[in-house]
């Protein structure tokens, strides 16, 4: 039986402080949790990184 190869991919989860709109993208160097990224395009609120985590991709 061949052993499964586990690849862990890092993701960054962003959320707007006001309208709570969320988005998920791949982790970029310089990201850290609670970092203010930009202004929300829909409500002009602050978009902040709320989570950085690893997800296992099994091959």
């Amino acid at each position, binding site marked *: 039986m061949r052993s499964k190869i586990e690849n*862990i991919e890092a993701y960054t989860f962003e959320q707007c402080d006001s309208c709570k709109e969320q988005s998920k993208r791949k982790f970029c*160097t*310089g990201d*850290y*949790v*609670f970092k203010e990224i930009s202004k929300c395009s829909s409500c002009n609120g602050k978009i902040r990184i709320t*989570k*950085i*985590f690893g997800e*296992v991709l099994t091959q």
Partner: protein
Amino acid sequence: MDFSQLDILDEFFGMGDDSNPLMMLVWILPIILLVFYGQRLQLIITSRDIKKELTRLEQFRNDSRNDLIEYVKNNLTSKDDVTKKLDRYFDYFTIMPVDIDPNGIIPKIHHLVRSREDTTRRQIHSLFTEISTMEVTKVQNLVEIVTSLQLLQKIVKHLFLTAKKQNNYPLILPLQMMLPFIMEQAEALKDAMSAFKQGQPIGDGIGPFVVGEMMLGTKKQKIELETVYSKSEFKGRKLILLKAEGPYATVGRPGEATESLVEQYKPDIIVMIDAALKLEGEDSGEVAQGFGAAIGGIGTDRFKIEEIATKSNIPVFSIVIKQSVKDAITLMKKEIADQMSNVKNQVHEMITDNTKSGQTVLVIGVGNTLGVAQ
């Protein structure tokens, strides 16, 4: 020709006769061989397995060392060749204080640990022309990983070679039993390199993650080296929130910070949030509540918190998030990160259940706050 009459087997092996000397030799020789050389044979077989693991361990050590050297060469401006100096740091050892008279051993251990940390930090600073606090803490942790791998490899090699040199099978048994656990730790350390190099949150950072979220929008103040606190309010209770200063790769100084905050604010209860090692069969990310100071490390910070809590008669409650050794020091898994709101709710519940309006609560997020600000 009729072969049915040819009884070769019976002639040579005495299948029908128990007293055949050749047959007796076939059985007795291996028994004699195993009685006198059994342990040596086992030593040869076991040695082969241990040697394979030792080679892997050496590979881990070399890979992580090369990774670190490559990282500093690519990302930092060094004054001269850092390889030689880093190689010297990997060999650093710590001589623990004399424990035959245990009276007052904790302050000695505390002094020793802090001296080592301060010296390493200073030395890392001196290696580079310009280096930020973030990079210093990252390199400090990376050096610590390589040092641990080097130490593991040296100890395993020493035990293995001693057993081989003495030709002593029982001597290799403890190593054979411990090796799977050592390899688990070594693999976790090797995998931790990536998260530390990229500044990603690790499983151990769940405590600072919860408290960091509670600190959002409050005024953060420095209380100790790489340690911050802020004041907040919840249902009429005054909250004092404490964590290591993020997003640096540090655990801060929670022991000393708790001593100062208890003297200053006289909290009615202390709530600690930390990652804890899960038992086999438990799931990563399981949350449990309990009593006592939830904090790992060499024990000096726990001692300080227990000491001040006992002296001031403050109950200490704790919430732990279960995870494996590997989960704790590698990139935070989704199932651990997803527990943040649940743990925060449990902290709030704990506060309302154990305090009245107007009382003060000290909430401590314990762990390495790499990649988690506040």
